Each structure stands twice: as C-alpha cells, then as structure tokens.
C-alpha cells in the first residue's frame, strides 16, 4: 500500500568503488589547494628574499658561518661593567609593569561588560585603548616617549607601562566578566557600597588570575626593557648598541648572555611565585 508520506528512497549504499572514488576526489581537492598555497609561497620567496638579497656580498655559506662565528665567545672583562645596566634594565621592567598595572585599573574597569559605568562610551573606549596598546610595538612606543620626555629610563618605563596595558587590562577585564555574581549579590545584600562590593566581591575572585597575568607580563617586560635601550631608553640595550658599533662582537655576546641571565632570573621568580600563590 503506497503512502504519500512514505520516507524518501534511502540513499544508495556505499560500495568499494564509490568510497574509493570519493576519497580520491577529496584528496585531489585538498592537494590542489595546498599546491596553490605552495606556489604562492615560493613566488613570495622569489620576489622578496631571493631578488632582494645581495647574494654577492654574502658570498658563500662558509662566509656566513665565518660571520656567525665572530659572535661565538664571550668578553669576560665586560661583565663587571654590565652589572649596573642589568640592574637598570630590571628596574625599568619592574616600574614599567607597576605603572602599567596602575593604568590598568581604570582600563579593566571600563573594559568589563558587567561593571563598566556607561556601556556605549566607556566600554568601546577601553577596548580601543587595549587594542592600541597591544598593536603598537614597544619600540614605537619607546620612540614616541623618547621624543616626548627625552632620553633615559623614564621613556622606557612609560613605554613598557603603556604597552602592558593591552594585555593585563584585557585579561583582567575577561576575568572580571567571568566572575560568579553570587558573592557580589551577597555583599550588596548585606548593605555594602560599590567600593566594598569591588573589594570583597570582585577582587578576591579575580586576584589570582590578575596576579598570574601580571607576572607573565613582567617577564616579557624584562625582554623588552633590554632592547629599549637601543632607541635611547636606558639599560642593557644601550650597551648592546655601543658594543655593536665598536664591532666588539664578543662584547655583544656578553650582553646577550647578561640578558638571558636576567630572563632566567625572571623565570625563576615567576616559577616560585606561582608555586606560592597558585
């Protein structure tokens, strides 16, 4: 008995040949896509690296290794004079992170959907600030601040502070948006004012995450601080620059070693801090 509402004819059962064919078609499609991608990449390499590089000047691979070899070896006599700049670099990183955290307080407040005071204006403003801060390279910020406040560590501190806002405020705002509203309601219910709500309801919930983010950014700031000196913002970067200019390659390597030591210190501090806090 035929039924107008009978289910449509079932799809044809797969056979070995149909499966093999569809797999093959699939492979060809993917293969073509990647082949095109590869062509594009090769073409890019050709017109940028290959045509742009002065191959004659480079000479052979041997000469390249020779040039690289110049860096191998450390100028030990330089190390005592590196202590000052290293401490300076560390300090710039610390102050820069601290200032950044202070600047992040309003930024994260405005940038969190649940506590921003006037959503149509303050939220987009905060988001724009964070994006701007993150998108501009620290060297560009450093150049800007050197132009504004002159050479020296202050420019470096300001550059790092402003650069850090992007990440710290963004993560903090996300942490604030993710909080459990329960404690906030509870504090409000007991009659707390806005400040107390933040202090007892919000802060305890986001503090671990925020601290973790701050430590992370502090470590990165040590990296950044070391090179900001190259554009005039103080610290090891200046020494690096001078060593390069006097072609003291072993000296350059010494500076790099100093930087790596500093970063290692940062990693150790961060590791122990995490153990203690989290």
């Amino acid at each position, binding site marked *: 008995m035929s039924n107008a509402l009978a289910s449509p004819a079932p799809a044809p059962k797969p056979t070995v040949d149909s499966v093999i064919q569809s797999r093959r078609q699939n492979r060809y499609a993917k293969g073509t896509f990647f082949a095109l991608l590869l062509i594009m990449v090769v073409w890019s390499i050709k017109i940028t690296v290959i045509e742009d590089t*002065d191959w004659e000047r480079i000479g052979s691979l041997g000469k390249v290794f020779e040039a690289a070899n110049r860096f191998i070896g450390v100028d030990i006599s330089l190390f005592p004079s590196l202590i000052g700049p290293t401490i300076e670099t560390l300090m710039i990183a*610390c102050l820069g992170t601290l200032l950044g955290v202070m600047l992040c307080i309003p930024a994260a407040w405005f940038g969190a959907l649940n506590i921003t005071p006037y959503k149509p204006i303050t939220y987009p403003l905060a988001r724009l600030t964070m994006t*701007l801060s993150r998108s501009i390279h620290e060297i560009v910020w450093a150049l800007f601040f050197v*132009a504004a406040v002159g050479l020296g560590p202050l420019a470096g501190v300001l550059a790092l502070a402003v650069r850090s806002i992007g990440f710290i405020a963004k993560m903090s705002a996300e942490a604030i948006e993710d909080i459990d509203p329960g404690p906030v309601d509870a504090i409000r219910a007991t009659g707390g004012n806005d400040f107390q709500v933040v202090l007892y309801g919000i802060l305890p919930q986001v503090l671990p995450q925020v601290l973790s983010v701050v430590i992370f950014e502090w470590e990165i700031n040590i990296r950044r601080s070391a090179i900001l000196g190259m554009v005039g913002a103080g610290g090891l970067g200046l020494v690096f620059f001078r060593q390069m200019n006097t072609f003291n390659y072993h000296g350059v390597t010494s500076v790099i070693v100093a930087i790596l030591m500093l970063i290692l210190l940062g990693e150790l501090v961060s590791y122990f801090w995490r153990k203690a806090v989290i």
Partner: protein
Amino acid sequence: MNRAMDPRPATPSGTPQRVWSRFKFPGSLIGYAVWLSILVFLAYTVEYLDIPLDRLFGMFGRMGTTLANRYYPPDIEYIMDADYLEYVIETIQMAYLGALFGLLASIPLGWFGSYNMSPSRRYVFPIARLISMGCRSVHEMIWAILFVTIIGFGMLPGVLALMFFCTGFAAKLFAEEIEAIDMGPVDAMRASGANLFQIMLFGVFPQVRVAFTGIAIYTWDVAFRAATVIGFFGAGGMGWYLKRNILQIETERVAAILLSIVFLVLISEAISAWARARVMKMK
C-alpha cells in the same frame, strides 16, 4: 556576663576554645614581609633611575605642546608615495614568510617539547624545551640585528629573525596544546600497532587542529607587528623609513610613518579577529 543570660550557644564541654585571628604566624608575617620588600625595592628604583616624580606632571604638559608643534600635521603625502608603499608590501610579505616558516619549524619542536608525546622524555624533551625557550628569550630585534650583522641588510635577515622568534613562542603554545589532549584516541592508536608518527597524525593532530589554527593566527599578529619595526635595524620593511626620518629629524614624516604603522597593525588585528571568529565556528 551571666552565663544564663548569654544568648550564644555554649561550646560542648571538653572542646578547647579556639581563637580565630586574621594574622597567622609565621605565614602572614612572611607574606607581609615579601610585599613590603617589593614596595621598598620599587621605591628604591625610582631613586636609582633618577625619575623626577615632581616634574612628571609638568612633563606631560610639555609633551603635549611638543607633539602638537613638531609632529602635527603628519606628512601624509610622504607615506602615499609609491616607494614607501612598496616597502609596506615588503613588510607584509616578510611577516607572513617569517610566520609561516616559524610555524612549520615549531610543529615538530612543539611535538618534541610536549611531555606526553615526545619521542624521548629524557633527552629530546628537555632539549626541545630549551631550544624553544632560547628562541623566545632573545628579543626579535636582537635576532634581527644579529642576522643583519651576519648576512647584511635586506629582507632575508628579517625573515630569518622573525622565523626564529616565532618558532620560540609558537612551539611553547603548541606543546601546551598537545599536553592538554585526551589520551584515549592515542591509546587506541598505540593498541593497534601504529608508530609514533602515525599516532601523532591520527591521535593528536585532529584534536589540536583548531587550537593550532588559533595559534597560527596569533603568530601572524605578532610577526606582523614586529615586521613593521624590524626595518629600523636594517632588516627590510617600512621600519627603515622610520629610522631614516628620525635621523634626519623629519618629525612630521616620522609622525606619518608611525600613523601608517598603527593603521596597518589595526587592520591586521581586525582581520585576525575575524579569522579567529570563523575558526571558533568551525569547531
């Protein structure tokens, strides 16, 4: 107070009276000591670095006027020049080649540096982690300067610098993703007699594919941001114009170049955000 009138419930006899205090010894003491020493250190740094806190606010006022006078209006015509635009295209190509090769290198490096899937936990794993940490710790500008010194000016050192830099952090992110997978499918592949390469192919990569795409997009972001500035040290791209104009104290042109850098990075970020949203939906 007369015990009979005390409304508080009596503690059952026999239990010791416990006193709660906010300040626990020695835990609290150590905590406060740490914070105090951090604050002292920071105060000292302000001294050491000679930062004029009192003059600071005055400085911002002067900063405003300096910028208004010398950096405004930015010389827009200068950056619309065809030569400059060529450099812009160069910057973009350098960025994506550096990011691409960096990502390609960081896939095996991340695999070897993942605790659960590394071919040898004793040797390969720590070496891979060390290499990736090393690449990460050296700032991309230092990589650029090193390569420029070794190879000369141009885009090749730029691409190499970006590649080494990207490998460092992409490998770490990859390794973390691999360490977070569900080991069930990996067990299944092991049980059927597959070798490590096949286990990675079928057991690991399908699980991390989406996260990898996210990491790839992030890598591009970072690479592009660095590529715009890398030319400052001779490694190709628009940064070279920046340096030239700074040396010539053509401040209005510098302003224009900085604006173009900011503009391009913002566009790149917008595209990345869109791409990331697409990837999230693809999950």
